[in-house]
C-alpha cells in the first residue's frame, strides 16, 4: 500500500467519523434543556412571545429536518444563525478564530522551539544540576493551573512592574497590530504549560531513543556525539514529540477557556464560555464541532508526520 493511498483512506475515515460525531453533537445540543428563544427572551419570556419566536426561527420544525438543514448548510460553509446574537455563526466565529490562531501561534512560537532544544539538552545532560533544575521547573509549570500562572504573571508584570497590559480591551475585529501588544500575558501563560508538556515528552523520547541499539552502534562506530544526536537520535526521537506537539497545538486552539476569560481575550475560548452562559445553542454547536474537527485533524496530521518521519516507513517497509 502506498503512503498516498493510506493517507487517503485515513482521511476518509476521519471525515466519516467527524460526520457521525457532528450528528451526535447536534442531537446532544438539542437535548439540552432550554432553547435559543428562552435564552433570548430571558426575564421577558411569556408563552406567547416564546411561540412567536420559535415560529419565526423555525424551531418548531422536527429535529431531523433541522439537522439535515443544518448539515446541508454546514457543507456549504453556513454554520447556522445565532438568534441570541442576531448574526450568522460564521460571522461571529471568524474574527475570533483569527484571534485564537494568533494567540496559539504566538504561544506556540514561544514554546515549541525552546521545548525541543531544552528537551534535547536535558536528556543529554541528565543528572546534571541544570537538567534537574529544568526538570523540576517543567514539572511545576505543567501542573500549575492556568489561573494560577495567570495570577502570578499578572502580579509581576502588570502590578509590580507595570510593563505589560493586564487585560485585552479590544473588539474581536481589531487588527493584528492592535492585538499583539495585549497578547503577551495570555500567550506566556499558555506557553508555560505547552512548553512543559512538549519538553518533557521530547526529553523522555530522546532518553528512550538514546538507549536503543542503533544509537549505541553509531556511538561505537566512533561518530562524534553531535552527529549521533542529529543524525540518529533526533529523527527517531522526534515523532513522539511531534505527536504531543500536534495535540498541544489543537489544545491551544480549543482549550483556552480559562486563559481567555481571565485576560478578556476576544478568542474562541471566551466566546464558548459566553455562549454556554447565554445558552446560545447555535454557537455552542458550532464551537463544539470546531473543537472536534481540530482534534481529529491534529491527530491526522501528527499521524501523517509520524509516518513520514519514521525511517521504517520512509524506507517503504510499511507500518
Amino acid at each position, binding site marked *: 500500500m502506498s503512503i498516498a493511498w493510506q493517507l487517503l483512506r485515513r482521511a476518509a475515515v476521519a471525515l466519516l467519523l467527524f460526520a457521525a460525531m457532528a450528528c451526535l453533537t447536534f442531537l446532544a445540543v438539542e437535548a439540552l434543556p432550554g432553547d435559543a428563544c428562552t435564552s433570548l427572551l430571558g426575564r421577558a419570556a411569556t408563552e406567547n412571545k416564546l411561540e412567536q419566536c420559535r415560529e419565526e426561527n423555525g424551531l418548531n420544525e422536527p429535529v431531523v429536518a433541522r439537522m439535515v438543514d443544518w448539515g446541508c448548510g454546514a457543507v456549504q460553509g453556513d454554520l447556522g444563525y445565532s438568534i441570541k446574537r442576531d448574526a450568522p455563526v460564521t460571522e461571529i466565529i471568524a474574527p475570533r478564530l483569527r484571534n485564537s490562531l494568533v494567540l496559539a501561534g504566538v504561544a506556540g512560537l514561544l514554546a515549541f522551539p525552546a521545548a525541543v532544544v531544552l528537551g534535547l539538552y536535558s536528556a543529554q545532560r541528565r543528572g546534571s544540576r541544570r537538567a534537574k533544575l529544568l*526538570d523540576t521547573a517543567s514539572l511545576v509549570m*505543567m501542573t500549575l*493551573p492556568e489561573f*494560577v500562572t495567570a495570577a502570578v504573571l499578572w502580579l509581576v508584570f502588570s502590578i509590580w512592574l507595570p510593563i505589560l497590559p493586564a487585560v485585552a480591551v479590544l473588539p474581536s475585529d481589531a487588527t493584528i497590530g492592535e492585538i499583539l501588544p495585549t497578547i503577551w500575558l495570555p500567550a506566556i501563560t499558555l506557553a508555560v504549560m505547552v512548553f512543559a*508538556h512538549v519538553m518533557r*515528552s521530547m526529553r*523522555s523520547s530522546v532518553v*528512550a531513543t538514546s538507549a536503543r541499539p542503533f544509537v549505541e552502534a553509531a556511538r561505537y562506530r566512533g561518530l562524534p556525539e553531535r552527529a549521533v544526536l542529529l543524525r540518529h537520535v533526533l529523527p527517531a526521537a522526534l515523532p513522539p514529540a511531534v505527536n504531543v506537539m500536534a495535540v498541544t497545538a489543537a489544545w491551544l486552539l480549543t*482549550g483556552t477557556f480559562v486563559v481567555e476569560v481571565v485576560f478578556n481575550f476576544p478568542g474562541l475560548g471566551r466566546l464558548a464560555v459566553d455562549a454556554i452562559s447565554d445558552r446560545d445553542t447555535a454557537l455552542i454547536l458550532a464551537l463544539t464541532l470546531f473543537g472536534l474537527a481540530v482534534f481529529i485533524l491534529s491527530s491526522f496530521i501528527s499521524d501523517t508526520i509520524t509516518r513520514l518521519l519514521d525511517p521504517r516507513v520512509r524506507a517503504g517497509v510499511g507500518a
Partner: protein
Amino acid sequence: MTDLGRVTGDDEVLHTSTRRRRHRWASLGGAIVAAHVVLAFVAPYLPLQDVSEQHSDAVLQGASSAHWFGTDNLGRDVFARTLWGGRPSIGLAAASVVLAALLGFLIGTFAAIAGGGVDKVMMRVNDVLLAVPSLLVLLLVASFIGREPLVLIVTLAVMYAPPIARLVRTASLNVLTRDFVVAARLRGASRWELVVGEVLPNIRGVVLTEVAMQFTWILLAFSSLSFLGLGASPPTPEWGLMIAESRTYMSITAWPVAAPVVMLATLVLGVNSLVDRNGVDGAT
C-alpha cells in the same frame, strides 16, 4: 491544561515504570500526598475556626494572630478554609478516577482479549472520546444539567476513562503475548480467568501510575470548573472556588488566593513526583 494532560499521556509509562526505583523525589512526593490525604480526613476534627463564620469587622485582612492566613471577602478565616478546601476536590477527583479506572480497565481488557474488529471499533470510539475537549463538555454538563457531585463524577469518569482504556489495552496486549499467558491460554483458561489471573497482576503498576496522573488532571479540571463558577457551590470551602472568589481582591490581600494555590500545587506536584518516571530516570 487538563485536556492537555489527559491527551498527551503517552505509553512511555510502559517501558519505565516497571524499573522504577524508590527515590527521594518519590518519597518526598509520597509524604506530601499522604499529608494531604490525612489532612482531608482529619480537618473536621482539628481545633480550627468555623469555616463559615463571618466577621463583618474583619474583611479582607492580612495575616494576624487571630487569623493566621487572614480573612476573605466575607470575613471568614482563610487558614481553616484552606485546610478544609481539599476535601471536596480530593473526594470528587478520587471518586471520578476510581470510576474512570474501572471503566478504562473493563474497556481496555475487553478490547485486548476480543481483538480483531471489536477491538478496532472500540479503540476508534475511544479515540473519538479522547478528541472531545473535556473542559467544554464539563462546562456544558455543569451548566445545562447541573453541578451535583454525582453528575460531575460520572462526566469526569467518562471523559477520563479513554486514556486509561488505551493504556490498559496496550499493556494487556503486551502481557497476553507473553509465554506464560499463551501457555495458560493453551491450558484452556477462560478469558476472564486470564484477565484476573495473569493480566491484572502484570499491568497493575503501569495502570496505577496512569491512574494517579489522571487523578491530578481531574483535580485540576474540577478546580478550573469551580474557578469558572460551575463547580463547587458556595459557601463550600474549595480551593478553585476560593481562588475565584478572592482573585478580585488579590492586590488588597493575597492570602485567600495564595494559600489554596499552594495547596493545590503541592498536591499535584506530590502526586507527580510520586509517580514521575522521568524524574526518576533523570537522577540515576
